[in-house]
């Protein structure tokens, strides 16, 4: 008796080929597959849902515009990720020039109401310092930090998504952490706002 027929998901290469033939359904499938990844990257780096939504839109609008140049033999994640990161940083540069209005996005970032306002402000400040630290990293280090730490992909998944070897990802993470450490150590706000490392962060897990 034949079992339920599983619908085979098209590969990235197949989707891109169809996109290149102006198939809008294929582009929708492509968008659906990667929109959460791009949105979370943008949200992690901007801390603003509206900005993240704009970055999401702009990233995929570019993907559609340059679909003829997308490669069908490699993962589109590095390309999408790179475009999203660039858009985030250009947007952040512009935003620093003007005062951000208090709105829904600011309230959304404020966190739970149970947290004291002063503590909440400190947490926000620390998050911003970390974002600034990531922004100061070389682009290849930004990629691995965002995928590995912010998205929570494993080392192997990060390596696969970026088309790198596992050892390369480990090495880039090591240098990225060293760079971040240097950046955060230079920022006095970090020490003041962060305090001691929680016990569970230093938990020993013996093999």
């Amino acid at each position, binding site marked *: 008796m034949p079992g339920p027929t599983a619908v085979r998901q098209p590969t990235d290469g197949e989707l891109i080929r169809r996109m290149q033939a102006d198939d*809008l359904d294929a582009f*929708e499938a492509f*968008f*659906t597959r990667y*929109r*959460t990844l791009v*949105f*979370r990257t943008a*949200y*992690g780096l901007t*801390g603003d*849902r509206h900005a*993240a*939504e704009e970055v*999401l*839109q702009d990233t*995929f*609008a570019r993907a*559609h515009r340059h679909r003829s140049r997308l490669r069908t033999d490699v993962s589109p994640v590095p390309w999408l990720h790179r475009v999203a990161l660039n858009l985030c940083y250009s947007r952040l540069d512009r935003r620093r020039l003007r005062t951000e209005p208090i709105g829904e996005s600011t309230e959304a*970032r404020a966190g739970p109401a149970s947290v004291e306002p002063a503590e909440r402000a400190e*947490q926000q400040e*620390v*998050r911003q*310092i*970390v*974002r600034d*630290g990531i922004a100061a990293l070389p682009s290849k280090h930004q990629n691995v*930090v965002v995928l590995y*730490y*912010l*998205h*929570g992909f*494993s*080392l*192997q*998944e990060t390596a696969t998504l970026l088309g790198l070897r596992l050892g390369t990802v*480990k090495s880039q993470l*090591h240098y990225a*952490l060293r760079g*971040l*450490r240097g950046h*955060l*150590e230079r920022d006095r706000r*970090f020490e003041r706002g*962060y305090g001691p*490392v*929680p016990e569970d*962060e*230093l*938990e*020993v*897990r*013996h*093999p």
Partner: protein
Amino acid sequence: MRRPWFSPCDVHRTALHDFVDHRAGYDPGSGRNLTAALDHLERCRDCEQQLAATALVIAALRRLADDVDTAEPPADSWHRLSTRLERPRPRRMMLSSPIASLALSAGLVVAIVAPQLGLDLVISTPDRAGPLPGADAASYIEEQRWLRDRLQGNARFAADQVPAAGAAATAVVRPRDLGPDGVQLTSLKPHFDAPPGRQH
């Protein structure tokens, strides 16, 4: 061939990093490696400080990740994107040719920089018989003198054209004041002598 020398800190760095960054996918190494690394950590102040700082950074990154974990794109994002893709893109105000834009940029630079270097961009005009004094010497005084001479020359020319004083108004006729059919076009110049009948 000599093998590269690694300090004990280098040897244990990976194991110590794995120790503070315990996550799926990280190979924490054998128990013997970790034990040796922890023994080294007890003796090495530098590694201890570095590890504490690294742990802080990792903890900060994970707290940032907690925000990201629950973030979902808006439900109508595809609708917005498809609407945007259907709209024709507005044409940017830009030069299509890189050579033209380069030439425009160079022209702008010359227009901005040349006056500061004292260069005269106006090559010649029919009104000017000779070069501006300032063009060569860039001397303010000479330029002023040149201007004064020109003004005096113009004043003399005007005085020659004006008939004897006393008239209420003077008609100055110059070739360009003749119309195409030879009809004289007059321009009235006010005379600053007291008008007749209004003398006090």
